[in-house]
């Protein structure tokens, strides 16, 4: 049973998708933790089938200002991977990484330096790479990823990009979402994996389902 029907995902399929999120995000979180040399924990991944109008609720509302780093996926699976952080959290992350700890408390209006933006892009690259490579070795599927595309804007506006891709095939989006954060919740964000419907079937099939 490898066909995935958006209207009737069974428990087994949910569990497997959640486990994929677990392994992928686990690796990504480890990579992040090594980079900032601090403990980063993550919650249990959620596999959610959402209507488009509910989509931006998962990251705390359509108007929340976030940094979204998007990768388009290729190879044996198609889709998108998005690494999303609160703007303020991402500034904390960049400050930790670049050792700018003396700087004043960032706010939504603080601008990134060019160095900061480039560091952030690279962080996105490394941890999404960790996510995807673990997914790839788990499933034995070849997964290639584009260069990172970054945008800093309202969550709803950023999520509209993957939503539109899903809109072409259905009225809902299926995504695997994991929230992570360090102990002080200083640096928190989300990994969102959004394969196309066919790719979900490919993933499930590769795992013998």
């Amino acid at each position, binding site marked *: 049973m490898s066909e995935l029907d958006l209207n009737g995902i069974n428990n087994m399929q949910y569990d497997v998708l959640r486990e994929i999120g677990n392994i992928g995000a686990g690796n990504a979180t480890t990579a992040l933790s090594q980079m900032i040399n601090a403990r980063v924990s993550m919650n249990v991944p959620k596999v959610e089938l959402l209507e488009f109008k509910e989509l931006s609720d998962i990251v705390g509302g359509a108007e929340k200002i976030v940094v979204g780093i998007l990768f388009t996926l290729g190879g044996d699976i198609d889709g998108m991977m998005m690494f999303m952080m609160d703007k303020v959290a991402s500034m904390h992350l960049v400050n930790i990484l670049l050792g700018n700890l003396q700087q004043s408390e960032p706010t939504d209006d603080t601008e990134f330096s060019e160095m900061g933006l480039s560091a952030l892009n690279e962080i996105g690259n490394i941890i999404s790479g960790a996510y995807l490579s673990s997914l790839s070795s788990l499933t034995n599927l070849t997964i290639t990823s584009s260069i990172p595309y970054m945008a800093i*804007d309202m969550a709803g506006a950023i999520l*509209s990009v993957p939503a539109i891709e899903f809109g*072409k095939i259905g009225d809902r989006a299926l995504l695997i979402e994991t929230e992570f954060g360090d102990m002080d919740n200083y640096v928190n964000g989300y990994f969102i994996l959004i394969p196309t419907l066919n790719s979900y079937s490919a993933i499930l099939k590769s795992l013998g389902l």
Partner: protein
Amino acid sequence: MNNTIKVGMADANVCKPPDVITTLGLGSCVGIVLYDPVKKIAGLVHIMLPDSTKIINNSNKYKFADTGIDTIIQDMASLGAIKRNLVAKIAGGAQMFSFNNNLEMMRIGERNVEATKNKLKKLGIPLLAEDTGANYGRTIEFYPETGLLHIRSVGKDRKIL
């Protein structure tokens, strides 16, 4: 009492004064406001894709520019709006990411705007104002009392159309 009516992605609603109708965080989608200035009835539809005829699964009419506009006009008519009074204001259709290898994905915002304009033209509904394109998200609020569309974006001044 004045309520703010929220419209989500691929969703629509209608509104009369003193209420306000809004959609948050428009990216490549387009927010289309239709307004009957005589009856002061407004409709807002948040479309995601240009053309329902190109997509097999098109049960949600509000997802597309063509069927979205048709359906919101019906919704407004049932509230008493008259089709020949209608005027339009639109916002959105941004290109959020600068994809360099995927032309189709890159132009989706632009195509949404084009499709919206074509549809309005076909129906003979005048487009009074627009704030479309560029690379940033928009939150829009429409006040049927005044007929004004307020647009907010990150790090930019509020625009009133």
